[in-house]
């Protein structure tokens, strides 16, 4: 029998980016909020100060901050007719773990999706007609527009202390920024980070090709900063121990650095750590949730009653918790019906490795989002009339992760992987190599989905989430086109060796660790037959359950997801505060 806790206004499942932002909004509105986090408390001074942080083996190679597979993993198969097997060791599906979630050890690239990305169905048909979409592709609008989300993107950039350069302020082009971004109300709160030699080389290459280069918006502070919650951030020191590491400097945008110091002081907020939610409990009519059941560190079961349940346990676990709790109809591939698990997407990766001669790139100097990019081939920024695909990719060069265990494979193609020849090649290429990395769009497909595994379970005996994924035809064609552009860029940058990279040419494997960006599975939309959530992230079926995270993306954009995770979360929080609290019930009629 589960022990009962006192009722609260809202319970938040998972205290990463989405959970922290939602908790900040709801507590500021006066609600009593309890967050349940399956990992432990983690903070800068106590857990990853500089005297602990600068350790490649522990944090990067052994992934010391990530959620171990022993706690929960996924099962994987490429096609619906295969049996799925558990991913037993580290792979591309990198789950956050502990307070802060993946927001503690992410890189900090803080993008906005393009206006097109929210309305790909409408805008594709308008520009190219009905026949543009490949068979099986499930392209659909989000039920929300870029303009709706703009104020919330802006709010997140202010909270996070984002460093960047605007390209479009209220329709006015801004030199040096990204000319393809949607109109913004104002510039970033901090100017761009300092540059590296790699950035200079990329800029020169872009200029030669007539492309528009700009600094990637960075959740690494280019200077001291105080955010709207009064929280102080210190300047990034370009330490380069960023991705997979906590930041010892209060310089990386993270729940710990930006939100929790203020949240922790509010009397109507508390977090229970090492408390894992097993399911959301529903009332007899299945139209409302009564709260959640969780298990604590000692293995005791508890019930936390609440008027509002916010599921913010990361994209994958959001979908899993909905399936385990019976919220929304599961996607059934055979009939093409059902919505939970539908429109899962990954990030379509391609690019080129580049090797220079006699450079001193000093790759150890960097930051998680210290990068220079072009968006000329992203989204619908170029004419697709004569291409057999929709979508595109951002193309960038990245100054980060220049550490010696991880870079050991970064030698020109054809070099032995061991022995004295490898040593010589590695010594030279350490200062001379980088890559043109392209993060592409990805669209939902009939044969790509998430459901519960019939065989394998987690440590509590609950079914694991099963991923059925392979590159779809549209996305693979796009990546082929983009890899060609990356090769052009490599040559334009003056690289001596350019090595084309097109992982979409073969079956996808999570072991390739191409990107950690997974989206969809509980998508938002205006049509309850193709979306699990309405445009306010509210479950169509259980009106007091809101689901925040990249699970709500109807498709993945050609860049990192978290800016859009934050904007959609804050947009939903606004709707809860302004509409739902006054009149609890469905915010949109099904």
């Amino acid at each position: 029998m589960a022990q009962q806790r006192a009722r609260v206004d809202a319970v938040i499942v998972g205290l990463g980016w989405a959970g922290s932002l939602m908790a900040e909004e709801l507590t500021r509105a006066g609600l009593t909020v309890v967050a349940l986090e399956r990992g432990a408390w983690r903070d800068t001074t106590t857990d990853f100060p500089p005297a602990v942080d600068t350790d490649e083996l522990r944090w990067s190679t052994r992934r010391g901050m990530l959620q171990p597979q022993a706690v929960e993993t996924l099962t994987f198969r490429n096609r619906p007719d295969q049996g799925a097997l558990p991913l037993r060791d580290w792979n591309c599906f990198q789950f956050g773990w502990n307070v802060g979630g993946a927001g503690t050890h992410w890189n900090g690239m803080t993008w906005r999706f393009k206006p097109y990305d929210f309305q790909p169905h409408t805008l594709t048909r308008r520009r190219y007609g009905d026949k543009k979409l490949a068979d099986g592709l499930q392209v659909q609008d989000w039920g929300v527009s870029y303009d709706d989300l703009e104020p919330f993107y802006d709010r997140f950039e202010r909270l996070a202390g984002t460093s960047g350069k605007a390209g479009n302020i209220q329709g006015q082009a801004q030199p040096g920024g990204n000319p393809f971004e949607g109109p913004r109300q104002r510039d970033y709160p901090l100017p761009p980070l300092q540059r590296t030699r790699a950035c200079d080389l990329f800029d020169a290459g872009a200029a030669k090709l007539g492309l528009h280069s700009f600094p990637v918006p960075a959740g690494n502070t280019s200077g001291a900063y105080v955010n709207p919650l009064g929280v102080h951030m210190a300047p990034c020191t370009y330490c380069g121990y960023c991705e997979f590491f906590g930041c010892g400097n209060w310089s990386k945008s993270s729940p710990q650095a930006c939100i929790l110091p203020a949240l922790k002081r509010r009397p109507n907020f508390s977090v229970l750590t090492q408390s894992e939610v097993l399911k959301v409990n529903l009332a007899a009519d299945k139209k409302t949730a009564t709260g959640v059941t969780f298990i604590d560190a000692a293995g005791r079961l508890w019930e936390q009653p609440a008027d509002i349940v916010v599921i913010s346990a990361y994209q994958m676990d959001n979908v899993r918790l909905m399936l385990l709790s019976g919220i929304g109809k599961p996607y059934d591939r055979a009939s093409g019906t059902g919505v939970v698990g539908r429109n899962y997407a990954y990030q379509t990766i391609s690019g080129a490795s580049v090797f220079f001669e006699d450079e001193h790139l000093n790759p150890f100097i960097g930051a998680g989002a210290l990068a220079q990019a072009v968006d000329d081939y992203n989204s619908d920024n170029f004419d697709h009339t004569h291409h057999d695909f929709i979508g595109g990719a951002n193309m960038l060069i990245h100054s980060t992760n220049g550490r010696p265990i991880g870079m050991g494979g970064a030698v020109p193609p054809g070099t032995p992987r061991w022995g004295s020849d490898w040593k010589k090649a590695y010594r030279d290429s350490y200062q001379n190599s980088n890559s043109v990395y392209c993060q592409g769009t990805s669209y939902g497909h009939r044969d790509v989905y998430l459901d519960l595994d019939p065989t394998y379970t987690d440590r509590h005996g609950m079914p694991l989430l099963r991923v059925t994924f392979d590159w779809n035809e549209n996305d693979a064609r796009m990546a082929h086109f983009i890899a060609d552009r990356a090769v052009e860029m490599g040559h334009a940058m003056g690289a001596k060796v350019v090595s084309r990279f097109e992982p979409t040419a073969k079956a996808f494997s999570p072991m390739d660790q191409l990107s950690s960006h997974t989206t969809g599975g509980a998508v938002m939309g205006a049509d309850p037959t193709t979306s699990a959530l309405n445009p306010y992230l509210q479950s169509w079926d259980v009106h007091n359950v809101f689901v925040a995270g990249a699970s709500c993306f109807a498709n993945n954009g050609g860049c990192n997801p978290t800016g859009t995770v934050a904007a959609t979360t804050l947009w939903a929080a606004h709707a809860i505060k302004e509409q739902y609290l006054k009149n609890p019930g469905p915010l949109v009629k099904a």
Partner: protein
Amino acid sequence: MDRRSVFKSLAGLAALGAAPSAATGAVIGKHTILDPGLNPESLPQPALTGGLAFLTVAEARTVGAVFDRLIPADELSVGATQAGCVEFLDRQLAGDYGRAATQYRQGPFVKGTPQQGPQFQQTPAERYRAGLAALDAYCAQAQGKAFADLTPDQQDALLTDMEGGKVDLGGTDAKAFFELMLQNVREGYFADPMYGGNKDMAGWKLVGFPGARYDYRDVIGKRGQKLDLPPVSLLDRG
């Protein structure tokens, strides 16, 4: 204070119980007092000193011979065993890594497609135990000698065949075992010296990596210049 004494004083604070207990499933809210000081679990965990902790002497000899072909001594730098890579591996195999503490270990174990990733029932420590024995047994049968007693050319030829998937080591997947050893020797050669390898920061000096530095604001403006920053270790045990 140098890095080492800072670290010691922080460790002292933690030992006095000033660190918040992360392990209790705490309720953290306005009234929770989070004291300064390090969470003891977060402190750097240097390798134990002393004799072998997991490998037998014979296993250490075999794996040392493999490692010295993967990262040989030459005019650029010392080889893997001189850099401490066997000690490094030994400590790793005796710890969480060796016992696959983070991995998903529930069955059924099924081979699957290459895309589905490794499905080993054995832990890394068990894979070394079985793999090194299989490697020596194979050499004894084919050449009448242990791996360590082959000539460097013979060793290279065998390793090349393992890498190419052309050797049958019975129950051991030779190609996967080769990949495991290659990954671990690189780790030993380039990880912080506190883990037992990378002696005198030989690996870091080879490529010019400055180690556990945390602030490059003074040099980021020197774009494209040779910097020659001497490396530093997290615990100065290089």
